[in-house]
Structure formats: structure tokens, C-alpha cells
């Protein structure tokens, strides 16, 4: 797959809010209008539509074609990607693949979910039989297992997790699209002393479910050149792994599929972790970011706390981290939330970070995490490396 033959020519993002009073399709329409405005494309030039998963859309098994109809997009390629929080980054990879295969030329990747206002999910999964009866309430408990296990195997300095939480919060303060309720600075003490949700997972480890939308307009590089678009961002490396170590009964929950997905992405991009200019990992819980640092090879397995101690994760630092605040400090737009850090990475590479613009825009690394399996780590892991390429 010639991933780098695809070009992101525009992005858009709504304000992230709790309980949106605007319909999910109204948010989608805002994204469509904004990417048309900023790229100069006409609606009729969009011939592909790829949606992320959406809790609001989950009651409709015709979600992508229904949304195409609502937005009056006549397309030659139409699908929803359903790998949870990996869906937005996965959608970009699928857009590049579809363009490369000649199935379409210009794809709107649309990530829209109003989960807090309207969730329609009725999942068919293992939980009803195996985890609901023990009172397990979703991801926080699963990350409680992961965190306790990590501490048992390697030791854990919670102040270092707090350092990541503080850096992200400071970024959210600078992000006008972040959920207003979260735009207040916090300290490491605030993090450590925040109340337990599922020990040792704290309130300030966790995302708050919100509503919002974002999207990318992706076209062939050739088309971008033909139209004289000089500001583009190109995917240069991608890796994806679902159900890491599915054929083993017991897996080390301090490992994830990001190890194999990351190796593939770095090899395809011809890069090493030390070359990454800014890091935009999926953040449903703070410790997930540390585990990803280890799995991606920024540091060794079990050495995350030492690595965090040595580095500066602010937008001015040596490894800027989720410079829009991440989902934890900007709010999680349901299953579209994987788009938040992706759009921020593209914004930074376009040089449009405003008061939080990073200095080094040679590249950015974005990841996804999707789905919580039974007594394992997480279901899907994706890794995408982006470069600006005008």
C-alpha cells in the first residue's frame, strides 16, 4: 500500500461539549462545511465517506449510508470503521487504501458522536454473561487491573502519571475546542489526591464522556498537486493489530498490540522513536499513554516512569504530548474521540496550533486504542505516523 500517496488537505473540529443540544448530523454538517471552506473543494468532488464508530449511530446498521444520505454525499466508497477508539485513525488508513486502490479519489473521514446526549448502543458481547454479574463497570475497572498488575511487576510512581495529566490539562487550557468544564489547571497533588473510581484508577486518570465531531478531507496526492494545494499532511507509516495474543489464555496486560503495530509503522516510515517530534497517543486513561511509550520503543518495558521523569511533555518541551489536552482534558467525544488527538496532530503539522504551536513539525505520531476484552489489555491498537509534505 502506498500510504504516502494520500494527502490530508483539510481538517475540522467542533467544540467538545457535555450533552450536546445539537444533533449528531448537525455536527457532521458543520465538519463537512468547514472542510469544504478551508480546502476550496466542492461537495461533488467528495466520492468517499468513511465514518468512525458512533454510540449515537450504533442503533443503525446502515450508519454510513444513512449519514451519506443525510449529508447528500453521492459516493463510490462508503463504510463505517468499527474498531472502537481506533476507528478514526483506522478510517484514515482505509481512506488511503481506498484511494490507492482507485476506488475513489477524495474521502471525507467523519468522526461524529453524541454519546452523552444520545446513546443507542445495544451491544452483543461477552460482558452480559461474564462481567456484568461481577459488577464490573466498564473501562475503569479494566484499567484498575492493568495498573495494579503494572505496579506489581515494575513498581509505579503515581506522580509521574500525574505529570502527564498536568501537561495535558495545561494544553486544554489553551484549546478553545476543549470542554469548558475541564479547562482549569491541575497539579500533580490534585491528580494523586483525586478520588478513586476503581482502585488504583482515579478520577483524574479517566476521560469524561462528551459530544463532538471532527473530520479530515483526504485526497490523492496527485489531485492535491493538481489543485495547487501546498499545505498537506501525509500518512507515512501505519500499523494495526486487533486481539493481540488472542491465542493465549493468559497475557501480560502491561503489553499491548502497539508493540507490533508500532514496529510496522516505524519500519514503513523509515523512522525511529527518537525522531518523533510530537506524540499524540490515545488517552482513555493516563497509564495507557505510559504503556504506549514503552510499547512504541520510546523507552524499555517497565521503564515508563523513568522516561516520564526525564522528558518535558508540554508543547514547548522535548516531546510534546497531546497538545490539545487529549481526550482526558478536552473531553471524549464517544467513539469519535479517537479523532481528537488525530486532528490536533494534523493541526500542528499545518502550523495552526496557535498559542500551543509546537516548534518541531517534522512529523507527528498518533495512536488509537479500541475495545476492552476479558481480563486482557485492549482489543485494538493502531499507530500512524504523519509528516507535512507540501
Amino acid at each position, binding site marked *: 500500500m502506498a500510504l504516502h500517496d494520500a494527502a490530508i488537505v483539510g481538517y475540522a473540529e467542533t467544540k467538545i461539549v457535555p450533552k450536546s443540544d445539537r444533533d449528531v448530523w448537525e455536527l457532521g454538517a458543520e465538519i463537512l462545511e468547514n472542510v469544504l471552506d478551508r480546502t476550496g473543494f466542492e461537495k461533488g468532488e467528495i466520492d468517499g465517506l468513511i465514518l468512525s464508530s458512533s454510540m449515537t449511530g450504533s442503533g443503525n446498521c446502515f450508519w454510513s449510508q444513512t449519514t451519506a444520505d443525510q449529508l447528500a454525499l453521492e459516493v463510490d466508497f462508503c463504510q463505517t470503521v468499527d474498531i472502537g477508539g481506533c476507528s478514526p485513525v483506522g478510517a484514515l488508513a482505509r481512506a488511503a487504501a481506498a484511494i490507492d486502490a482507485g476506488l475513489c479519489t477524495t474521502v471525507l473521514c467523519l468522526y461524529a458522536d453524541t454519546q452523552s446526549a444520545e446513546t443507542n448502543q445495544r451491544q452483543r458481547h461477552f460482558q452480559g454473561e461474564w462481567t456484568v454479574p*461481577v*459488577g464490573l*463497570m466498564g473501562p475503569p475497572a479494566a484499567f*484498575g487491573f492493568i495498573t495494579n498488575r503494572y505496579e506489581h511487576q515494575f513498581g509505579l510512581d503515581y506522580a509521574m502519571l500525574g505529570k502527564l495529566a498536568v501537561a495535558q490539562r495545561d494544553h486544554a487550557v489553551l484549546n478553545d475546542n476543549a470542554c469548558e468544564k475541564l479547562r482549569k489547571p491541575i497539579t500533580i497533588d490534585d491528580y494523586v489526591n483525586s478520588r478513586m473510581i*476503581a482502585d488504583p484508577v482515579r478520577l483524574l486518570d479517566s476521560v469524561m464522556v462528551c459530544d463532538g465531531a471532527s473530520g479530515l478531507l483526504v485526497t490523492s496526492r496527485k489531485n492535491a498537486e493538481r489543485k495547487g494545494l501546498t499545505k498537506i499532511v501525509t500518512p507515512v507509516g501505519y500499523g494495526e493489530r486487533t486481539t493481540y495474543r488472542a491465542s493465549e*489464555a*493468559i497475557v501480560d496486560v502491561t503489553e499491548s498490540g502497539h508493540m507490533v503495530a508500532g514496529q510496522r509503522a516505524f519500519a514503513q516510515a523509515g523512522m525511529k522513536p527518537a525522531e518523533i517530534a510530537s506524540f499524540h497517543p490515545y488517552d482513555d486513561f493516563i497509564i495507557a499513554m505510559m504503556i504506549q511509550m514503552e510499547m512504541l520503543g520510546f523507552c524499555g518495558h517497565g521503564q515508563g516512569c523513568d522516561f516520564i521523569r526525564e522528558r518535558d511533555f508540554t508543547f514547548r518541551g522535548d516531546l510534546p504530548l497531546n497538545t490539545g489536552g487529549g481526550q482526558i482534558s478536552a473531553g471524549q467525544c464517544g467513539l469519535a474521540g479517537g479523532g481528537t488527538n488525530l486532528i490536533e496532530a494534523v493541526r500542528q503539522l499545518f502550523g495552526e496550533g496557535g498559542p500551543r504551536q509546537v516548534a518541531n513539525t517534522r512529523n507527528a505520531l498518533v495512536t488509537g486504542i479500541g475495545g476492552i476484552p476479558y*481480563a486482557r489489555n485492549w482489543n485494538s491498537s493502531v499507530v500512524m505516523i504523519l509528516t507535512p509534505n507540501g
Partner: protein
Amino acid sequence: MTTINDTLDIPREAPKFRSFSKPFWDGTREKKLLLQFDPAVGKFQFYPRATSIYTGRRNLEWREASGCGAVHSFTIARRGRPPFQGKEPFFIAVVTLDEGVNVMGNMVDCSMEDMKIGLRVKPYWHALPDGYHILIFTPER
């Protein structure tokens, strides 16, 4: 000291099993822990599936297991949905059974001080509606 709920007073529903997991739940009627075993590789698996996680074949057997093992990890649930809501906090443990699978369960007769990774546990069968039981764990003493 915060006391932790042993979850025995929480009304739970009868199991919602699938065609391929019914033998597990039928076993609980007699307080037997039945696990799927793949004779081709000599390994157990949990939770029950329609296929061997090892080979993709369906030649699985049901074998009775001890239900004894050691705590692999755990969390203290501070929030729950009904019927657990208002009954927090309670333990959810992931136990590595001696048969080599991880199983989740609540804990009975286990204090905050008792709980640690590596704690040896044994089964405590708690009654559910319709004659079924749920596997809970209790420290081996």
C-alpha cells in the same frame, strides 16, 4: 478502616448463556467448575467460546477444574450499575486458576489488608436464580 462488601447481598440475575456456554452454567447447578479443554494442545481456555482459541478447531472437551488459584490482579469497584449501585466498594479479582486460565470474580471473607496479587484463593459458590451458581473466590486459609 473501610469495610468492603462481599457482594452476597446483591440480587443477581440468572445467567444469560449462549449455545456453546450452556455446559458451563449447567455445571454450576452442582457447584462444578467446567472449563473448555483443547486436547490437541493440552490447554484450557476461558471464557467459553465456540472455537478453540489455540487452533480454530471445535474439538473442545469440558473438564472439571478445581477453581483454586492465585490473584493475578484486582480492583476495588467504587461505582457500579444496579444492582451493584449503592453496594460499593467491592472487589473484582482476576484469578489465575491452577489450570492456567484467568477468571474474574468477587471476593468473600477478604479484607482490604488480605488482598494482594498472589493471594491463594479457592471457590465459593453463590446461588443465583433457577438453581445456577456464580463463582466467587475466598482466601485459602
